[in-house]
């Protein structure tokens, strides 16, 4: 029956998928049985009791025993199906405590992801094999839906709140993600990929940020970090004073710090500010900047420095 499974369902990419499939096939065989039963009875009647002029038909109004049977038997089967489906659903609704959390944001018509270490990716999630992954999802515009057929999971991604789904990938390779809630013109192009890797491959990807990050010019990478890691919420690029100093024209200038030191803005200054912002306060500013220690890759830090250099 392997061919039937392969013809009917996508590949089983998670532990959960196997459980869903077993219920799927249970319902299928029950359905086939009842459908054949009805079909055979209909065609037997049509053939056996074909119209003959003048034939009398028995006046059968009802048969209590028969009616009880055909009420009770389907009821029992449906109760079984309900509890089976319920058990699977609850298993799918409650992620294990050790699940790795990835944040998913849907937006017309891209998926973006953020990993525990702050790494971000677009339309592509990398996950290690055999480790539960929990997706915490929200949308920035309309309702989307994160559907991974191979994992048998699906959940609407709703603006204004968070929803979640989880899976435990068992199959290495690429699995397609569809947006399954209609969201407009690009709905059918709002696809993504789940790339299931070995632990080593996954860690390597996290560390290097993948090929894309390695190839990106440093200044561009810095601009990306500036937008994505939240620098832009406090540091302006046009010289206007926000919660933190603007980056415009600060490179190579000298600053008088709150504690009286005078320092020149160079590579070490920028790096130190990012790692220990509390020690690098300028007069007139509060100590509000979080430390980025361990949250940025080496190449990203260099990128930010290059980016600041370019703000003349």
């Amino acid at each position, binding site marked *: 029956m392997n061919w039937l499974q392969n013809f009917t369902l996508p590949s089983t990419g998670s532990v959960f998928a196997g459980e869903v499939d077993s219920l799927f096939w249970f319902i299928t065989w029950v359905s086939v049985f009842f459908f054949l039963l009805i079909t055979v009875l209909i065609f037997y009647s049509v053939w056996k009791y074909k119209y003959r002029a003048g034939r009398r038909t028995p006046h059968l109004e009802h048969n209590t025993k028969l009616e009880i049977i055909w009420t009770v038997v389907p009821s029992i089967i449906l109760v079984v199906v309900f509890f089976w489906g319920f058990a699977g659903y609850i298993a799918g609704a409650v992620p294990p405590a050790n699940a790795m*959390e990835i*944040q998913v944001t849907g937006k017309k018509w891209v998926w973006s992801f*953020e990993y*525990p270490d*702050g790494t971000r990716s677009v339309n592509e999630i990398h996950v290690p094999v055999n480790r539960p992954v929990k997706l*915490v999802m*929200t949308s920035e515009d309309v309702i989307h839906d994160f559907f991974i057929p191979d994992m048998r999971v699906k959940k609407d991604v709703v603006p204004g*709140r*968070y*929803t*979640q789904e989880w899976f435990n990938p068992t199959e290495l390779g690429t699995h397609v993600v569809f947006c399954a809630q209609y969201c407009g013109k690009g709905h059918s192009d709002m696809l993504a990929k789940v790339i299931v890797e070995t632990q080593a491959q996954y860690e390597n990807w996290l560390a290097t940020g993948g090929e894309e990050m390695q190839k990106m010019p440093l200044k561009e990478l810095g601009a990306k970090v500036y937008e994505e*890691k*939240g*620098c832009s*919420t*406090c540091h302006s690029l046009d010289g206007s004073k926000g*919660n933190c100093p603007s980056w415009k024209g600060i490179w190579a200038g000298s600053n008088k710090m709150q504690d009286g030191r005078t320092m020149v803005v160079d590579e070490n200054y920028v790096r130190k500010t990012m790692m220990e912002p509390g020690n690098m306060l300028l007069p007139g500013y*509060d100590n*509000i900047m*979080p430390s*980025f220690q361990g*949250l940025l890759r080496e190449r990203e830090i260099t990128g930010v420095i290059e980016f600041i250099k370019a703000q003349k």
Partner: protein
Amino acid sequence: MSEHTASNPKKDAISYAVTLTVLLVLTFITVGASYLDFGSGNVVIALVIATIKASLVGLIFMHLLHEKPIDGLVLVAGFLLLSLFLGFCFIDIDSRGDLQPANVKAPVLVPAKPAAPAAKHQ
């Protein structure tokens, strides 16, 4: 209708007047109760009084007491369905978990802007 033709016009008129008086008294009570604080009981009291008033209007003014039961059944079906609707919506909204992503505080927390006096306005 057959009951009506049999019933006494004078008695009917009196019952209508009494009903109006009771309705007005109940209106006073419900307004009065709104000035007292019963915690969450206020809504319950207001709704119970409203339901008593609505029932009086239905039974006496709309003659449901004397009509065929089907007419009243239609009305009750309407209310019943409405409560089901509210009930299920409430079950859903009440039992939704408040899910938050783990990083909601870190790494970059934007300090609350001095704006939003709205929060105090409540």
